[in-house]
């Protein structure tokens, strides 16, 4: 891991990270400490997804590294971005008609769910998976689409404005079914006898590290095995954590005004 070959310090992702950070400093007002942390963590993870060995190994060496990168871009980075937006700033942005319309549109749960779960499935169609790894242009399209799909996925759960959020119980169903979706894909990849992403079965050894990877046990079969499990287990744990946060929100929603007269003394159905 210390091997300098495995780090890609000159990655163009730094430009993007710098721009995003400047935009956050310039336009976001009133962010709490936690929101700042979310922003910085998100940008750090975004950078590391490309700069660190994860990004380098994902470029044609290890399917499992590709899978880690995939999850960082689809789940972690977008979640941090959404969580970093303070309510007041967001309310101001989303006041205007067309932007509000966009917010509402993103809040349609079917859209976010299909985006989040669909992106995982779509980019693992074998020929597409290989092509996106081999061609830089398609790779960029994939990475951008992953982040966009992730934003759409987290929006109904953590949107900064309450009106875009799903009610907690529906949110839990949304996350649980997403967990089932990635579980099925995880099982498929883990136990599939053929190569899900053929390019990783016969890597081109650009950096001369293939032998050491294989001798460390990362042969293509094991690699795909690990990749499938990464697709399966960490996202479900992440979803479970999100569900716990929704439960917390649900149990503490005591300020909501009662819309129903309590105090009736008849048993239901009497």
């Amino acid at each position: 891991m210390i091997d300098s070959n495995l780090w890609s310090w000159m990655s163009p992702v730094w430009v993007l990270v710098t721009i995003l950070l400047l935009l956050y400093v310039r336009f976001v007002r009133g962010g709490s400490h936690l929101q700042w942390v979310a922003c910085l963590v998100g940008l750090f993870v975004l950078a590391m997804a490309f700069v660190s060995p994860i990004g380098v190994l994902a470029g044609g060496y290890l399917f499992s590294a590709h899978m880690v990168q995939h999850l960082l871009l689809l789940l972690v980075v977008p979640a941090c971005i959404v969580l970093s937006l303070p309510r007041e700033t967001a309310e101001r942005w989303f006041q205007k008609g067309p932007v509000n319309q966009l917010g509402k549109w993103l809040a349609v749960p079917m859209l976010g769910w299909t985006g989040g779960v669909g992106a995982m499935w779509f980019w693992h169609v074998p020929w597409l998976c290989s092509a996106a790894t081999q061609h830089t242009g398609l790779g960029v399209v994939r990475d951008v689409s992953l982040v966009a799909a992730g934003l759409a996925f987290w929006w109904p759960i953590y949107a900064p404005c309450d009106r875009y959020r799903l009610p907690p119980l529906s949110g839990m169903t949304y996350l649980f079914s997403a967990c089932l979706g990635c579980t099925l894909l995880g099982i498929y990849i883990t136990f599939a006898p053929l190569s899900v992403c053929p390019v990783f079965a016969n890597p081109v050894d650009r950096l001369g590290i293939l032998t050491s990877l294989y001798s460390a046990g990362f042969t293509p079969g094991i690699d795909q095995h690990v990749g499938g499990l990464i697709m399966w287990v960490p996202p479900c744990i992440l979803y479970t954590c999100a569900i716990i946060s929704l439960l917390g929100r649900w149990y503490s929603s005591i300020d909501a005004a009662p819309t129903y007269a309590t105090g009736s003394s008849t048993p239901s159905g009497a």
Partner: protein
Amino acid sequence: MSTQTVDQLDAPIAQSSWGLLSWVTTVDHKRVGLLYILFAIFFLVVGGLEAVLMRIQLAVPNNTFLSPEFFNQLFTMHGTTMVFLVGMPIFTGFSNFLVPLMIGAKDVAFPRLNAMSFWMLPFGAFLLYFSFLTGSAPDAGWFSYAPLSTKPYNLDTGIDYWILGLVVAGIGSIAGAINIVATVLCLRAPGMSLQRVPLFVWIMLMQAMLILITIPPLNSAIALLCIDRWLEAAFFEPVRGGSALLWQHFFWIFGHPEVYVFALPAFAMISEVIPVFSRKPIYGYAFVAGSSTVILLLSYGVWAHHMFAVGLGTSANIFFSAMTMLIALPTGVKIFNWTATMWGGAIQLTTAMLFAIAFLIQFVIGGLTGIMFAAVPIDWQMTDTYFVVAHFHYVLIGGILFAVFAAIYYWFPKITGHMLDERLGKWQFWLWVIGFNGTFMVQHFLGAMGMPRRVFTYADNPGWATLNAISSYSVIFMVLGTLVLVWNVVKSLIDGEKAGNNPWDAFTLEWATTSPPPTENFTSLPEIKSRRPVWDQTHPDHADWKHSKTPEDRGRRPDRARVCAWAFVISEAIFFALLIIAYVVFNFDQTGDGPSAVNSLNVERTGIFTLFLLSSSLTFMVAERSLRLGRQASFVTWLGITILFGVVFLAGQAWEYTDLLTSGVAIDTNLFASTFFTVTGFHGLHVTGGLVALAIMFALGRKQRVTQAQSKPFGAIGIYWHFVDVVWIVVFATIYLRVYQS
């Protein structure tokens, strides 16, 4: 809203009578609940006697008291009985009795379905135990591992009875779970928001949901095993290309969540008993409730820790190991909650509370050995030894059965109107503590010394005889304890102290009515403004709502027919998902030269018939809309067209089957044919079922008996019909278009 939906309930019949007929025909949730509990206790005794026989056999080395064959049958039947005929029904029984009372409802959402759910159970039990009369009870373990359970290794009919019994009991369990889900979601009294339900109710809701998703994998596995045994397919026969491992996967996808199907209700009971006898509200309600939800989510992802020794690969083992350790967290959280509830409380050491405290300690021991098994190397060393037996009996008896005893002492006054004798209760408690720990604690050592489980006898190795003797003789204490309980119940029923409405000064709504409750459960309810309405009523100065706010009830109650349909559809979806997974597993790389999807199926022709099925969903929606708007003639016409389209689809399937069979492709030809006929056959059965329901609606509609007022139940049938179509889209994409190979 609840008031409207429950008005439709018919009054249960013949309630005042206590004759046998009144019990057989009852649809009252309390009586059905009691039937469940009595049934479970009967089989607890039967399964217990089987265990006693096994312990007699194992009391001394090289014993010949039982034959090896009979010993195999005994441990198989003991496990199957305790899981399906004791564990499942006893909790369904308590849930049936208590949930409607605790949420202030008159009955469950579907009383007749409830009675059916129960009566499936004796039927299933009869099938299972009838196998003894054939001379060959099932003998492949409660998990019926393949290929031991397949025909070449098990020619007798025992496994067939096992299959039939489990399917029948499983149908009852799913129907019962649907009922609990619909009851909690649709029938809560005004004021009782979901955040205010007693923990028992919330956790039993989670358990019912878990049953809905955990029984279908078993049914899928059993369906495949059944086809293997009866129609000579080879899903689980490695010799003919099948996979014995697939059985283990499917079985444990059911089997591990099943552990939580038992553990959750025990948590539910303890969460009611400990606060009442500590005279405090539960510490961290949201944590107990929330962690139960998390258990529901995680329990589905840890099954492979039962398979560490089969060679899944290091990476899979590591991940499942990590997941297993994770699931210990939400369970551990609760232990802290219960302990913190007792902390600083005015603890009353009633028998119920003693059992609850013993539960805490013994369950922690069982839980800790469970975490040991999550570590792969320890599992490799200990698997299939008596350490495993000790571990899960600490969970199932020391934990769960002790919780059931606590529940019996706590709710018996409500159920019968009489108190149980506390002195006898304490005798039972100590006899069980001694007997249980004596029997199972030493089995940890036996396991560590290498004594394998599931063997009918053992050699006289150093120390084994003594430890086994301790284990066997301790059983006597448990038997005596049980006799004390029986005597206590009989004595209480004859001349027990009258209980009154609320003998424990307890908190939840079941204590707001008489003991036993009247048929309609309540004449009036206290105001529900917190989680402890009865406490608020009896201690108005210290009412909970005055100092701690809980989310108000917004009055939303979903339609129970729709809830029922959705719950059923989710359960069925999982059944099909596993069948389709089986298809993909066996058809991944078709290298053989036998029939395959490529050379045997006519994709275009089936595509056309698919269009008919999909169109039937559209015509159904038109029919539904017509009904909602009150256009009767249009409704009947469009419903007729829907049925016609469905029939055309089935005719297409019949055509395809005929072609395949005449060209020599039958279910036993090869694994493609087996999986193809299984998946499409089960789908066809579901279409047929849907068509029967639609035909009934059609006949009633023509007689003007399905009108606008019935549009909601009709819509529920629609959910099922659309589901059948969606399943076909997946089946078509998988089998005919082979998307998984793209």
